[in-house]
């Protein structure tokens, strides 16, 4: 009794035919390779302090060195091993927690739903960085606590979206007939409802990878995340504030953040177009 649903079957192949999706995919893949192969690719030890200090970008050090004489290119490569896995983990956890709560809120309605959504509203009542900052400060400055702080502010958007989608699907004929055939609430939710809400959640999650990385590196920039000497990108940008004249110290780690976020935003945006029935047809026609 599965209907075609709001978004129908996923149309991933079309998503890949868009130049932006290809660009995003290639950049994201490149960063994942860099993260995995950092020990092989990096020209220097990211923590070794034996190089000339604040050397400008040149043949020996493509991105220059920082105030402690560490190679910035190597630090950025090793930084990918800090930021990228943590960000992905963060988004997966947010989707699981927010999605489950949101589905429960949408499906069971009245007071279970109201309670969950009011808690979500409470989180939404604070601008993200302010709340994350207070939580991170309350827990103590560390990368783990920064991740927890981002998680606290991240789950409600999934709860809201999932609830909205479930509400839209809940009253449709194929769900109702499933219930009439004797499906339990849980089975109906799992078999009939969830497959029809995964598309938008996937889009949201892809776009959220960028947001999560921005927030996480922002907390580190404020000194509430990664501790030195960890090569975390946000903390590296922060260290550039003190040596303003040596522009390369802050510029390159910032570009690393920008390219990763941009890659996932390119992907997410293309994915949204491909999954949206209103634009999907146009993409298909163009691709043919």
């Amino acid at each position: 009794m599965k209907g075609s649903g709001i978004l129908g079957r996923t149309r991933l192949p079309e998503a890949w035919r868009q130049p932006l999706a290809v660009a995003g995919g290639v950049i994201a893949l490149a960063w994942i390779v860099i993260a995995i192969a950092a020990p092989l690719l990096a020209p220097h030890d990211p923590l070794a302090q034996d190089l000339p200090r604040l050397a400008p970008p040149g043949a020996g050090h493509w991105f220059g060195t920082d105030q402690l004489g560490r190679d910035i290119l190597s630090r950025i490569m090793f930084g990918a091993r800090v930021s990228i896995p943590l960000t992905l983990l963060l988004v997966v956890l947010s989707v699981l927690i927010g999605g489950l709560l949101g589905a429960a809120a949408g499906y069971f309605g009245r007071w279970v739903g109201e309670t969950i959504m009011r808690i979500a509203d409470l989180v939404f009542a604070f601008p993200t960085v302010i709340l994350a900052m207070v939580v991170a400060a309350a827990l103590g400055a560390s990368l783990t606590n920064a991740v927890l702080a981002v998680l606290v502010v991240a789950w409600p958007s999934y709860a809201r979206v999932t609830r909205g989608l479930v509400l839209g699907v809940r009253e449709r004929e194929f769900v109702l007939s499933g219930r009439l055939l004797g499906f339990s609430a849980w089975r109906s939710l799992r078999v009939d409802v969830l497959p029809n809400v995964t598309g938008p959640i996937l889009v949201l999650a892809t776009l959220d990878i960028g947001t999560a990385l921005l927030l996480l590196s922002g907390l580190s920039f404020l000194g509430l995340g990664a501790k030195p000497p960890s090569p975390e990108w946000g903390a590296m940008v922060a260290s550039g504030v003190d040596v303003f004249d040596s522009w390369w110290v802050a510029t390159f780690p910032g570009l690393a953040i920008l390219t990763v976020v941009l890659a996932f935003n390119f992907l997410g945006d293309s994915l949204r177009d491909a999954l949206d029935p209103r634009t999907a047809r146009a993409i298909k026609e163009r691709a043919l």
Partner: protein
Amino acid sequence: MSPASAPSNEPESGTAVQGPTAPVPRGRTGRGPRGSRRPLARFLARRVAIALLLALAITLVTFVLTNLVPGDPVSANLGQQALGDPAIVAQWRTDHGLDRPLPEQYLLHLEGLLHGDLGMSQQSHRPVADDLAEFVPATLELAGTAIIISLVLGVAFGVIAALRRDRLSDHVLRIASLIGISVPTFWLALVAFYVFFFRLQITPGSGRIDPGLSPPPQVTGLYTVDSALAGQWDVFSSAIGHLLAPALVLALYTIGLLTRFTRSAVLEVLGQDYVRAARAKGLPGRVVLFRYILRPALVPIITVAGLAFGSLLSGTVLVEAVFAWPGVGQYAYKSATTLDLPAVMGVGLVVGLVYLVINLVVDVLYGVIDPRVRVS
């Protein structure tokens, strides 16, 4: 998590199959499905009641959060020598109400709030309310300028992109807006400061006005408005100059967000039969654009604008740090890192309440523009 994820965050995406918002004749929708009378008034009353409850909840959350802090505020605020003297420590705890049970501390806190008392900042040794009164206008001036820039540019770019769909300008705007929402704000602030102040010396440096000038007499706390009221045009131009760079940096993200969102909202309306009908009966393009396309498209745009304001308030923490802008963002950061509990509570409370009011306004506008929202 943040407005970046908002585009699919709206009820529209769930109800897309039902078609977009059309300007429905008023008479038919003035009444709910069960015939309830005056749905708009009921809708407003319900929203205001929810907002009041949320406001109370915000006071509870800020209170509980700041009391979860494992760090000991006593050791954070007293010198090494004073810490060695139990009498001084006990006196300090009594002075700050830390020896009472938590529920009692909360009630004391609430009672103080009703009198406008947010406690004493442990860092500045001044009432938090006074600190905030000094810093809030600076942040409102910055965030207000940024939201105006974002709304004007974001909606304009979005409409252009939608009307010129799949042409070069649409593609350029799409990539530009995606870059806009991908740039780390704190990094962009640094780069802008370095390039435009340090290298090119086009923009003035940090702070709200040039160091040689004294602030205008305080009326609103907004330097641009106050200096204009006092007729101090040198201060006015200095204030504008100092405002521009941080406001633009802050606005970039929300411009990108609103462009993307306006584009999809307008596209959704553009293909509707009633738009075609309006064109077919020969209405001028301007009328079709503003009355038939923009009005229904405004519903999702306004929602995102409310969320965008939240991200602006967030962004101020990062931008103010770089531009040494003496606002709430910087105050919040300093208070959080020094465990200045009353100050953190004050910031969380005030920023939370400002955001709450913005969202209430958004909800109300939503109900006014789209009659269907009132009855749900």
